[in-house]
């Protein structure tokens, strides 16, 4: 099985996928018969306040005739739920959209910090350069049940199953929107979208024209710099190039923190509309980054005192190139061919990692008869792992390998009653080099009695496929006492090629409504039933070459459980100048391990995510030139990690005298000098936690 995708056959399959797309190019473009009818309305966003209105004042008379007067929150554009353009109100899923305006006014300087405002997401800052981000439970440094994409490129690392948030970054001013879907997205997006999908979508090149310069700094975000320039010609070609650099200081640690870091990044994007009717559009984009970050670790050593605190520097670098070709037949049918190449490099004392990813995907959507809208696709991905572990604390056997993945998906949206009831059914089928065949079906029902209400329900299955570590890795933990052995040993988490995928059966129900002109709210509830969740059991202890007793813990699937919860968010628009929103997230986790399993994992999982979270955000335009934004959040305690509950506040005050200049002062984590968000965990051997400190920074932005 594992040799299937390293053969020329797999490459043939991948290129056939690409070739099939090319054949469809020969189909005539009916859109040539009439010019596009859809309007170019400015994005309909709730709570755009002053800045949205500034956009309207610049419009020409033709464009003005197409602008909506009343902007209900249900009309916000979303594409991640159905892999095609839709709106929040018509999405049978728990979706939350973060617009560029929300990013700008949050004062956040990185993607995980922006995600804090999403109900249902648990964002915990482990240290200055590491975050644990999860949806609906199971949070840790390598939270593995959340798929994250940037412009269609998966940034979920197959090495440890999780996201390296320190290296996933874009120029925040280039973000068009971030769509967060909580709940299984396996049907459309594939394995590992078990509890959610986060899709970071950047602006098209034609929307980032001219020069933009940002500069700033402060006490935690020591320096912030960014520059971007965009241009275009008359032939439908538009492009941009950007660079950014930041330096961030360490968190708080009484023993001395060393988690400061700096990363520089540069990239480009070229969009070409090959003909005036947008029959064919091409995009090429890419970027390159390099940086380093400090880490403290508590590592096991074979001689007394058997553990030591290490201060280390990690080097990071990476690059990617992505191309996309979209061929549009008409409003309801098009196809898209995408290919990307991604290279990642990371080096620290325990591991040198080289990961190369090559991915080709094709999707086609078209209407079937009067009542159905079909979308289907094929995809093929290769991950090439090149690893050089230290051999004692971390090991991978074999250290070099290529793993492949082939998938097909299909989804049908059936109109049962026009404008009222829609049923969406589909499934994704995958063949991967770890567990073979996987399937992820889902059924969703959407009821829209009128433009102001929608209710939805869904039943879905999703899987989390094994990571490279799950199969081939070994991690030695500091010497400690474990249940089942009467004296201290070195536990060693060991990979197991018999580890199977974790699976989830999710039942979800949700309701959203634009209750009045001023108030809208959205409720999502779920019951998740998990089987074959990862845990480990004590194997037979042995004596290693250093004369120490090692207790192996082979990874297995001997824990199962349920989670249930609810996420509710309300939006109030008090006036053209003041909007605020409040959200509440509730989560309950109950895990049960098999009697034979000895690793006490269930309390770690149950106590590793907060039961309750409350978030309040306010956006207030004090006057034409001044903006004041406030964010308040409460996060419940993590008992097994000894993290107390906390409440904290962020404030942003900005002076925006014109469209070309903005000066913002942001103060974060105001209510405490420092607070803990994540605690002692086995991954402390990779990254120890520090506390998040109160900080303030100023940032100026010029646009020409």
């Amino acid at each position, binding site marked *: 099985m594992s040799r299937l995708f390293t053969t020329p056959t797999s490459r043939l399959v991948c290129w056939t996928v690409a070739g099939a797309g090319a054949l469809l190019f020969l189909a005539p473009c009916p859109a040539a018969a009439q010019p596009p009818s859809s309007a170019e309305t400015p994005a309909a966003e*709730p709570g755009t306040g002053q800045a*949205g*209105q*500034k956009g*309207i*004042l*610049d*419009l*020409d*008379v*033709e464009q*003005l*005739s*197409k*602008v*909506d*007067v*009343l*902007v*209900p*929150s249900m009309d916000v554009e979303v594409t991640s739920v159905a892999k095609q353009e839709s709106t929040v109100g018509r999405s049978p899923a728990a979706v939350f959209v973060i617009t560029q305006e929300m990013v700008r006014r949050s004062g956040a300087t990185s993607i995980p910090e922006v995600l804090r405002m999403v109900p249902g997401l648990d964002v915990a800052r482990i240290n200055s350069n590491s975050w644990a981000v999860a949806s609906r439970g199971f949070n840790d440094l390598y939270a593995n049940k959340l798929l994250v994409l940037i412009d269609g490129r998966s940034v979920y690392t197959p090495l440890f199953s999780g996201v390296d948030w320190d290296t996933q970054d874009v120029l925040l001013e280039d973000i068009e929107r971030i769509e967060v879907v909580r709940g299984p997205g396996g049907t459309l997006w594939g394995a590992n979208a078990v509890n959610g999908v986060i899709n970071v979508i950047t602006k098209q090149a034609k929307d980032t024209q001219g020069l933009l310069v940002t500069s700033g700094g402060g006490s935690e975000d020591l320096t912030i710099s960014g520059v971007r320039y965009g241009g275009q010609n008359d032939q439908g070609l538009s492009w941009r190039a950007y660079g950014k650099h930041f330096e961030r200081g360490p968190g708080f640690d009484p023993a001395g923190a060393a988690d400061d870091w700096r990363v520089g990044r540069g990239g480009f994007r070229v969009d070409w509309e090959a003909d005036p009717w947008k029959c064919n559009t091409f995009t090429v984009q890419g970027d390159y980054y390099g940086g380093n970050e400090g880490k403290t670790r508590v590592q096991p050593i074979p001689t007394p005192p058997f553990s030591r605190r290490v201060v280390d520097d990690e080097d990071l670098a990476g690059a990617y190139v992505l191309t996309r070709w979209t061929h549009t037949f008409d409003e309801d049918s098009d196809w898209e061919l995408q290919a990307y190449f991604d290279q990642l490099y990371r080096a620290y004392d325990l591991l040198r990692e080289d990961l190369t990813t090559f991915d080709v995907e094709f999707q086609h959507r078209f209407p079937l008869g009067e009542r159905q809208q079909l979308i289907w696709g094929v995809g093929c991905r290769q991950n090439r792992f090149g690893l050089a572990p230290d051999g004692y604390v971390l090991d991978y056997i074999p250290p070099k390998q290529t793993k492949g993945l082939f998938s097909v998906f299909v989804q049908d949206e059936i109109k049962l009653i026009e404008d009222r009831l829609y049923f969406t059914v589909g499934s994704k089928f995958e063949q991967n080099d770890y567990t073979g065949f996987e399937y992820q079906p889902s059924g969703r029902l959407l009821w829209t009695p009128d433009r102001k209400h929608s209710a939805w329900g869904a039943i879905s299955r999703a899987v989390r496929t094994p990571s490279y570590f799950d199969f081939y890795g070994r991690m030695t933990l500091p010497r400690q006492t474990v249940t089942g052995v009467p004296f201290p040993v070195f536990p060693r988490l060991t990979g197991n090629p018999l580890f199977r995928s974790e699976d989830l059966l999710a039942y979800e129900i949700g309701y959203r409504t634009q209750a*009045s*002109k*001023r108030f809208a709210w959205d409720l999502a509830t779920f019951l998740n039933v998990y089987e074959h969740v990862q845990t480990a059991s004590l194997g037979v202890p042995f004596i290693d070459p250093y004369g120490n007793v090692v207790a192996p813990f082979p990874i297995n699937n001997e824990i199962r459980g349920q989670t249930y919860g609810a996420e509710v968010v309300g939006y109030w*628009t*008090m*006036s*053209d*100048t*003041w909007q605020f929103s409040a959200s509440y997230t509730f989560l309950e986790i109950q895990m049960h391990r098999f009697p034979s399993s000895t690793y006490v994992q269930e309390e770690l999982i149950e106590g590793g995510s907060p039961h309750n979270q409350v978030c*309040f955000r*306010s956006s*207030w335009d004090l006057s*034409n030139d001044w903006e*004041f934004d*406030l964010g*308040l959040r*409460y996060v419940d305690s993590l008992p097994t990690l000894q993290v107390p*509950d*906390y*409440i*904290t*506040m962020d*404030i942003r005050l900005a002076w925006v005298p*014109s*469209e070309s200049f903005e000066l913002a002062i942001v103060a974060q984590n*105001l*209510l*405490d000098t420092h607070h803990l968000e994540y605690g002692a965990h086995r991954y402390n051997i990779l990254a120890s936690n520090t506390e998040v400190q109160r900080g303030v920074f100023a940032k100026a932005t010029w646009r020409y």
Partner: protein
Amino acid sequence: MVILFRAILGLALPCSMVPCAVAQSTDESGLSREYTIKAAYLHNFARYVQWRAETFRNDQDPFVIGVLGSDPLGDDLDRIAQTKQVDAHKIVVRRFPSLDQFRPCHILFVPRSVEPQRQVETIGRLRNSPVLLIGETPGFAERGGTINFFIEQNKVRFEINQQAAKRAGLKISAKLLSLAKLVSEDDGSRER
């Protein structure tokens, strides 16, 4: 306990601002962008309509937008005046609480809050003056106003009375006419 204290501290700041913010929002706009769109239209009308040369003494003379009665356009109109121009003329906004305080302007916007009697009076008074009269009340254009806003399918649209424009010596560009509903005076008939 400490959490409670911090919560109160955290809420005190926004709460202290709530009364002020609420007091400001006496309008019904909610999520409506109606007046922002209309302010943008006023600027566009200025661009696509030609006034007789004698309405400007010289190149430095500003383009004057007047508003009668209580002004619903507010900040958006001020923003237009600060950032835009009309053929190299700066834009100046004048607000007249009543018709008695009227002074010459190129555009006069008559909000729907003005009583119908006053609206008719205004139209009558400025019938032959080179002023672009813009209203937002049904019947405004039929009574002799030049342009009238109306809302259709959640979009701001406008109707033009060409006879009124001719009387005022205004030349309206074909582009603007093509986007408008054309209206005849007095008899209320509409044609595309």
